[in-house]
C-alpha cells in the first residue's frame, strides 16, 4: 500500500457530474450471469437434448409413426423437426429446471456469497437490484429456448436432409421461414417462463440458501403442471402459469394464430405483477444479516 497515491479529497465525492444512467449494473449482471460456467453448463445441457434426440434417431431404425413425442417420426425426412421435438420434450421439466436454477439464485445466491450486503451499501438500491436481477433471469429465459431450438436446427441440418416444412395447419414453409418459426417459438417460451422467473425471484428473497430457492421453484412448476392434468380442477386451469406452456403449436400455423400467445402473455404478466410485488414487499423490508 504505497502512500504516494495522489491525495483524493473526500469532499469530491459530493460532486461527480457525469454519472452513468444506472445501466452499468444491468450490463454487469448480464456479464456475470453469462460469464459464469454454471450458466453455460445449463445452456449446454439444454442444447444436448436435441443432439441426443437426433443421434438416437440417426442410429436407430425408423420411428414408427405415432410413437414417441410428436414430430419424432418426421425427423428422418426433415432435420428441422429435431428442433420442434426437442422443444416439446424440454418444456415440461428441463426448461423450468434451468430457469429455476437461475431465478432461484438471483437474490439468495448473492446473499449466500455475502456480496448482497456490498451491492446494497454501494448503494445499488433494493428496487433497482431486484429489477436488474429479474432482467437477468429474463435474459436467461430468452437464451434457454433459443439454445434448444437453434441447436436442434443445427444438428438436424447436419444429420438429416432439410426441406420445406409442413405446418400443423397443412401449409408449407421454406426452411428459412421454418427457422424463423423456431425463433418465434423460443419467444413464446421466453414469455411462458417469465411468470416462473418471478416466482423464483420471490422465493429467492425468502432464503439465503440458493439451492432451497431453486428446488422450490422447480417444485412449484411441477405442481402447476400436475394440477393442470386433473380434470376435477378444470376451473383452475386457465389460472395456472404453466397452462399455455405447450400452446406454442399455434406458432406453427399459417397464418400464425396469436390467441394463445396473447392469453399467455396476459397470464404471465399477471404472475409477474403479483410475485414481483411480493418479492418487492419482502426484499425492501428485509434485514440483510448474511
Amino acid at each position, binding site marked *: *500500500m*504505497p*502512500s504516494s*497515491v*495522489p*491525495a*483524493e*479529497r*473526500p*469532499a*469530491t*465525492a*459530493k460532486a*461527480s457530474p*457525469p*454519472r*452513468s*444512467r*444506472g445501466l*452499468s*449494473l444491468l*450490463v*454487469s449482471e448480464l456479464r*456475470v450471469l453469462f*460469464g*459464469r*460456467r454454471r450458466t453455460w453448463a445449463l445452456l449446454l445441457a439444454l442444447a444436448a437434448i436435441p443432439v441426443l434426440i437426433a443421434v438416437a434417431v440417426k442410429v436407430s431404425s425408423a420411428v414408427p409413426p405415432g410413437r414417441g413425442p410428436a414430430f419424432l417420426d418426421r425427423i428422418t425426412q426433415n432435420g428441422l423437426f429435431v428442433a420442434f421435438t426437442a422443444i416439446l420434450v424440454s418444456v415440461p421439466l428441463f426448461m423450468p429446471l434451468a430457469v429455476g436454477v437461475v431465478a432461484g439464485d438471483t437474490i439468495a445466491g448473492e446473499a449466500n*456469497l*455475502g*456480496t448482497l*450486503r*456490498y*451491492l*446494497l*451499501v*454501494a*448503494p*445499488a*438500491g433494493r428496487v*433497482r*437490484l431486484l429489477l436488474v436481477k429479474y432482467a437477468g433471469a429474463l435474459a436467461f429465459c430468452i437464451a434457454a429456448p433459443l439454445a434448444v431450438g437453434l441447436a436442434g436446427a443445427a444438428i438436424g441440418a447436419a444429420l438429416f436432409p432439410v426441406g420445406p416444412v409442413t405446418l400443423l395447419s397443412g401449409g408449407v414453409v421454406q426452411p428459412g421461414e421454418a427457422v424463423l418459426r423456431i425463433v418465434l417459438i423460443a419467444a413464446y417460451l421466453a414469455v411462458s417462463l417469465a411468470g416462473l422467473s418471478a416466482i423464483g425471484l420471490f422465493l429467492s428473497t425468502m432464503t439465503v440458501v440458493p439451492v432451497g430457492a431453486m428446488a422450490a421453484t422447480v417444485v412449484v412448476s411441477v405442481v402447476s403442471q400436475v394440477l393442470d392434468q386433473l380434470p376435477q380442477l378444470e376451473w383452475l386451469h386457465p389460472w395456472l402459469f404453466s397452462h399455455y406452456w405447450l400452446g406454442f403449436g399455434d406458432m406453427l400455423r399459417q397464418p400464425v394464430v396469436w390467441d394463445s400467445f396473447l392469453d399467455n402473455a396476459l397470464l404471465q404478466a399477471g404472475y409477474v405483477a403479483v410475485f414481483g410485488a411480493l418479492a418487492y414487499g419482502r426484499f425492501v*423490508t428485509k*434485514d*440483510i*444479516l448474511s
Partner: protein
Amino acid sequence: MAAGLPGTAPVAAGLAIETRGLSKHFGRQAAVDRVDLAVPHGTVFGFLGPNGSGKTTTIRMLLGLAAASAGTVTLLGEEMPRKLHDVLPRVGALVEGPAFYPFLSGAANLHRLDSASPHTVPASRKARVQQALERVGLEHAAGKRVHAYSLGMKQRLGIANALLSPRDLLVLDEPTNGLDPQGTREVRNLVRSLAQQGTTVFVSSHLLAEVDQMCTHAAVMSAGKLVAQGPLAQLRQSGSTRLRLVTPDGGAARQVLAGLGLAPGRGVDGGLGAEPAPGTAGVSVRQETLRAQPDGETIVAALGPGDGQTAVLPEEVVARLVQAGVRVRGFAVERESLEDRFVALTGEGFDVAQ
C-alpha cells in the same frame, strides 16, 4: 499523502455518525440496546467489544442493511435509512469480512461492485479500480480469481472496495482480520493517511492493541450496550496509574511513601514472586531477570487517577526517596492499559455475551 490541497480539509464540525437510542431486537433478545454513538468528524474511531456484543449488528443498522427496532441513525448529517441513496455513495464499508464472487478475478469483482452504484462514473472506473488495487498492494493479483486468494488477500480486496471512490466516511469491520503483520501495519498506515485527508474512519475491532495504535477515539460495547465512549486518552485516564519501585531499603521507602500520602501496596520480597506488570507478556523472562539481579524489594503504590492532576508527581517521589537515602534501583510509572480498562468494562472470561 497530506500534500496538496491546502486549506481544503473539511472542518471537523458536527458528527459523522450519531445514533440515538439505537436498538435491535431479535425475538425477545436485544442484540443492540439503546446505543447512543457520537463519532466526531475527522476522527479514527475504534468500536470495541467482545464477540457477540452487537458491534456488527450496529454497523448493519448504520449502513441501512438492517432496520432498527427503535432509535435513529444519522450518517454524515443525513438521516438513515431515509437518505440512504444520498449518504452511502460517500461511505466506504467493509462489513463482517470481505465477500466476493469466487469465480471472478479481483479486478472484475471491484468493477462489479463499483457499477452497482448509479452514482459512480463509468469512465473512470478502470482507473479507480486500478488505483484501489495498488493502494492495498494487490496489483499483481488483480487478474487472479478470488477463489485462489488467501484470506488476507480477500481482506485487502475488501478494503480496496471500500476505497473505490473518495469517501467522507469509512466503516471498517475488523479490517485486519486474517492479515499478516505487514498487512496489519499497512492497514494502520492507510487508515492514518486517510484520516489525515479528513476522512472519518470507524473501525470495529476486538483487538485492543490495534485500536490503541490507530484510533483517536473509541467506544466500548458489552452485551448490546454502549458502556464507554470518548477520546482514547480520556478512556485510558479514567483508569489509575501506579508506581513500581525496586529497592533494597524496603522499610525506609515505605515510610517515605506513607509520608507522601501514598499507600504502599503489598511489597514483594526478593523479586522472586514479582507480580508481572499488566500488559506485559513473557512473565517468566521477567521473573528470571529479577532473580539474576537481587535488587531487593518491589513496592507498588497507587499514584491516584492518571488525569495529570495528581497531587504527587512521580519525580517528586523519587527526589524524596533519594533525600531519605533510599537506594532506588528501579522506578516506573505504570498506567492502567487499555486492556485492563476493557476487561474492567466488559468482564473477563471466554463467555460470549448473551
